[in-house]
């Protein structure tokens, strides 16, 4: 859906905005929906079909849980039904655990980065791609905890995962920032360690910073505008990976739709600037 220089920026479409979105029909190349919000029938499903007539759709999942000991095959089959109906151009989920035994956490818990985890996640991603009949993208999580017995860096883990399974990567720039800050690392170094050749999509979102036990912690809240530091990081990411679809994610404390569209315009400007710099560099 893109050449290397056109901005490709979409927004996450949530039910609060359905009516306004329907009225405005904004000029966007794509919108993204959470699969788990649209597995029911009724209006949620009908609206998605209606949007699909005019927009490309990216399907973002939160419940496949590739880091779990076992996969919920029934859930993946329900996602397959949705995908078959709306033919999205991207399907993604996270490098995380959301299913612990029979319990779903409605959260994205990080997993230890070990050889055992890597084998398990690779096997699960293979299985998911077979069940869905297509490539999926795996997103780097926001992390507040790190396991003492991890032996592989997140970048190495994601790189090995993409190479072994053929999956793509969804690079959440805000998550890189949040995790790096929580690990007292430089976000730019963390971005440079991200295996950018496998990146098929960027996510951008807002986060909060709070004080806990006297230490500062960034929390991935998706409830506010993207901060300047994350925009700067996104600018650097665009220079490494051009023309990749980029999404403005805003899930909580949702503002008017126009605010999301303004954020999308900012992301487009960053993509345009990165593209022009690379053209200049090529011309020299």
């Amino acid at each position, binding site marked *: 859906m893109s050449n290397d220089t056109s901005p490709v920026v979409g927004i996450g479409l949530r039910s609060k905005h359905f009516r306004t979105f329907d009225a405005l029909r904004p000029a966007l190349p794509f919108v993204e929906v959470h699969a*788990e*919000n649209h*597995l*029911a*029938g*009724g*209006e*949620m*499903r*009908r609206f998605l079909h209606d949007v699909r007539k005019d927009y490309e759709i990216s399907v973002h999942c*939160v*419940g*496949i*849980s590739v880091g*779990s*000991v076992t996969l*919920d095959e029934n*859930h993946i089959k329900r996602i397959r039904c949705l995908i078959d109906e709306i033919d999205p151009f991207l399907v993604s989920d996270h490098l995380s*655990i*959301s*299913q*612990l*035994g*029979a*319990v*779903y*956490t*409605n*959260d994205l*818990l990080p*997993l*230890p980065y*070990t050889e*055992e*985890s890597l084998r*398990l996640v690779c096997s699960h991603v293979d299985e998911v791609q077979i069940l869905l009949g297509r490539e999926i993208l795996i997103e780097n999580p926001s992390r*507040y*905890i*790190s*396991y*003492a*017995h991890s032996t592989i860096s997140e970048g190495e883990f994601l790189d090995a995962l993409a190479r072994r399974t053929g999956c793509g990567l969804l690079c959440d720039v805000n998550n890189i920032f949040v995790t790096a800050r*929580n690990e*007292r690392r430089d976000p730019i170094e963390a971005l440079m360690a991200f295996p950018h050749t496998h990146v098929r999509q960027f996510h951008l979102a807002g986060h909060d910073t709070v004080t*806990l*036990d*006297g*230490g500062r*912690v960034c*929390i991935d809240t998706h409830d506010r505008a993207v901060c300047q530091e994350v925009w700067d990081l996104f600018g650097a990411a665009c220079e490494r990976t051009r023309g990749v679809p980029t999404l403005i994610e805003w899930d909580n404390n949702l503002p008017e739709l126009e605010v999301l569209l303004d954020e999308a315009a900012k992301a487009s400007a960053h993509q345009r600037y990165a593209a022009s710099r690379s053209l200049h560099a090529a011309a020299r």
Partner: protein
Amino acid sequence: MPLLAEVHAALRHALVFGETLPLGLLVASCPEAETQFDIHRNHFFQSLTGALEKTFPAIVSLVDQRFFSYCAHEFIQEHPPRTPCLFEYGESFPEFVAQFPPCRHLPYLGDVAQLEWNIHAVFHAVDGSGVDVLNIVRPGLPADIRLMESSFPVHRIWQAALEHESSGVDVSHSTAKLVIYRDDGDSTMQQLGDCAFEFLRAVAAGAGPLVALGKASHIDPSYSLGREIPEVVMCRLYGTHSNAQHGNHHVH
């Protein structure tokens, strides 16, 4: 080095039951590892409480926000989600609040919660099939039509609670026989008379229209097919029209 399965078990106990994580599992830093994990604990309870608040707004109004949060916390610990879809979470909440000791002075609470779950389930029901959001087959009635009977006027209590006027409802002098259904994408309900309710109850149990009509006629021999039943419901059942539609409430 702990195996992944051991890590999962530790996370489940720490997240749902508030147990301490095994010493040394996480990298210690500032803030301490347990405090960092509290971010996940808080998200787990807050996001699920938020989902329950959205599904059961009348219960929030009837018991107040703080008590609802306490009740939800107890419910989440006892009944954590078994599905990744939030819209499927809370089916057993009505039974939970009905049995919840601190709510015993509100004997209608479980039925009001059941009404709210029915409204929610009908709104999200899979189109054109005989299964509900949890894939349970419901012989007779499509998933977007539900029946409910209560010894309390739950529809009036529900409406008054949403309008924050619950003190105005006399809970002891009437009952409710309701059909909850989807009309133009929205959940709607209608109070039914005895015959109409008996008719639909028979249909829900798998009876054909003539057998169901016979059941309704036991109550009133003059009852005619479709009387007092919403037109949309009759259309969904048989593709026909009834001639009466009144007293229904759109709820979303």
